[in-house]
């Protein structure tokens, strides 16, 4: 069963990558720099992202957002700190974006999720 699954998985991955590689401009994938151990044949490299990154240009006090019902006391959030300032991101929104970035206290920051 495991052998059959592994063979099926390899075939699907190979077909997928064969179709995808030319579109991402890596037809000569062997010449692309990579770190040792990175197996490009296992990677899914998309030609475009299905996910829109969250470019953070504005924010509000968390206490105000709580008062306005934007979030609840127990809403899962992710908190990043820069230069003594703290910024919260809503975890469920990050499952949509996967990447958020902006500037805080004059310093660039990014969160991946």
């Amino acid at each position, binding site marked *: 069963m495991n052998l059959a699954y592994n063979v099926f998985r390899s075939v*699907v991955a190979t077909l997928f990558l064969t179709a995808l590689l030319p579109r991402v401009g890596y037809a000569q994938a062997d010449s692309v720099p990579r770190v040792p151990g990175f197996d490009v044949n296992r990677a899914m*490299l998309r030609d*475009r992202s299905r996910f829109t990154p969250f470019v953070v240009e504005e924010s509000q006090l968390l206490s105000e957002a709580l008062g306005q019902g934007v979030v609840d006391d127990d809403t899962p959030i*992710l*908190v990043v700190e820069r230069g003594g300032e703290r*910024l919260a991101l*809503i975890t469920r929104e*990050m499952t949509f974006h996967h990447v958020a970035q*902006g500037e805080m206290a004059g310093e660039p920051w*990014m969160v991946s999720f």
Partner: protein
Amino acid sequence: MVCNTGVGLTPLVDGQVHHFQARGLYNGLFLMWDEESGTYWNHITGEALYGPLAGTRLELANVLHTTPAQSLAEDEQTRIAVSGQSPRRRRGGRSWVDRVPVLRGMFRSTIDEEDDRRPTMDIGLGIWGDSVARYYALDIVVENDAVVIDSFAGRRLLVFVEPSANVLWAQYTSADSAWWEGKDLRLSNGELIHQGVTYDNEGERVPAERPLQVFTRWYGFALTFPHTEVFQAPENR
């Protein structure tokens, strides 16, 4: 993401801000891609894996899983950025800890061989330093009265379930034991952790010093840090 791994990074390469997005999968984890160079990056270690900047690393920082109530107890000036975008419109809902997702075939097809010391979707806290990584399974910490004092990189480390968010946090400590007083954690050095904030025995706040950590699924941490240690409860050591 299915791996549940939130990481803070500084998007600077040679002093220039690069702009990132999720674009690809490897080892069941999404890959970041930057517009400026077209390089694919590991989103946990911040290492450029494939493309012109391969080998470059972004600076890392902790991102804590928490709640508004806890974050405001830590700092009333905490701000929030809201995009209004979400794959699930329902507010609240079950925490990540309570969900038991399955790693779908698309993710598995990017994995060579899993580390079976823990179940694939087991959730826990992964911590790492220059030369060592260690994984604390949530179940094991919970079975240990939700608090563990361990040593890491030559320092004493407190790992506990933060009650408001029901997630694991780790911070360095000088205490050699800890116990719960309701939802507060009392440490043998006189400190008290209340709503995630550490106070000394005179009630003054003590800044928490934390190792790099991610509240994550086992498969992603083990594939990112193949030589990771797995914390064992004292009676199993």
